[in-house]
């Protein structure tokens, strides 16, 4: 049975992750330089600058296929939660904030970005939970085998 809610949530997340991953890949030099400005990642900026877009592309691939969507939503929530924690840490502890976000999202302030990330983390978590609970209902409703 199709789960329209989780399909819409997955599509929104595909749009978000594909857009930012492509931005980070195309404009890789800018992404790398802003990571070098980051007090948390400056020593591993080169590695992170590739790991983040590759992971985002990976999440997009998982979200596109219905059989892998549940894992994709879980990883999307995890990735967004880690970005949210990073933004929270930077807002609390770092006075001069570099932005390593992609495209039009870089127009947001750090506080707006935090709200944006919290929203999308909640959306991904809800999508994952929805698929999980629907599967449990489907298992419970399936007829018991005749013995």
């Amino acid at each position, binding site marked *: 049975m*199709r789960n329209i809610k989780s*399909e*819409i949530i*997955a*599509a*929104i997340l*595909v*749009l*978000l992750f*594909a*857009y930012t991953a*492509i*931005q980070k890949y*195309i*404009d890789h*030099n*800018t992404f790398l*330089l802003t990571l*070098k400005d980051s007090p948390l990642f400056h020593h591993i900026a080169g590695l992170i600058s590739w790991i983040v877009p590759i992971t985002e592309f990976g999440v*997009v691939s998982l*979200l*596109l*296929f*219905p059989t892998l969507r549940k894992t994709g939503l879980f990883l999307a929530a995890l990735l967004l939660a880690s970005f949210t924690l990073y933004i929270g840490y930077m807002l609390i502890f770092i006075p001069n904030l570099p932005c390593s976000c992609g*495209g*039009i999202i870089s127009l947001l302030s750090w506080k707006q970005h935090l709200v944006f990330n919290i929203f999308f983390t909640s959306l991904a978590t809800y999508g994952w939970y929805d698929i999980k609970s629907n599967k449990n209902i489907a298992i419970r409703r399936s007829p018991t085998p005749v013995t």
Partner: protein
Amino acid sequence: MKQYLLGFVALVTAITLNSFTLRTENHRGTTNIYKYLDYPNDAFINNSAHYQQVSSITCPGGSHRCAVEAQDDGTGLPDLTVPYTPRTKN
């Protein structure tokens, strides 16, 4: 096939949106040579506005700074807040 449709529409939209996103070229972080414009007066050597990017330079020698090899600060001027190499000769 219907269950793949929304995802692929989103993917195509993301690619399309990227095509319309303006990119400004950022030279920040690249190392260049910047000529010191007030040579041999050393009063403004710490002011990046008194430098100009050049492709190469030959310094006359002596103790005064004539140029620096430094990272670009993103505006075409040297970033003097990070380590750089001052040039006094050649």
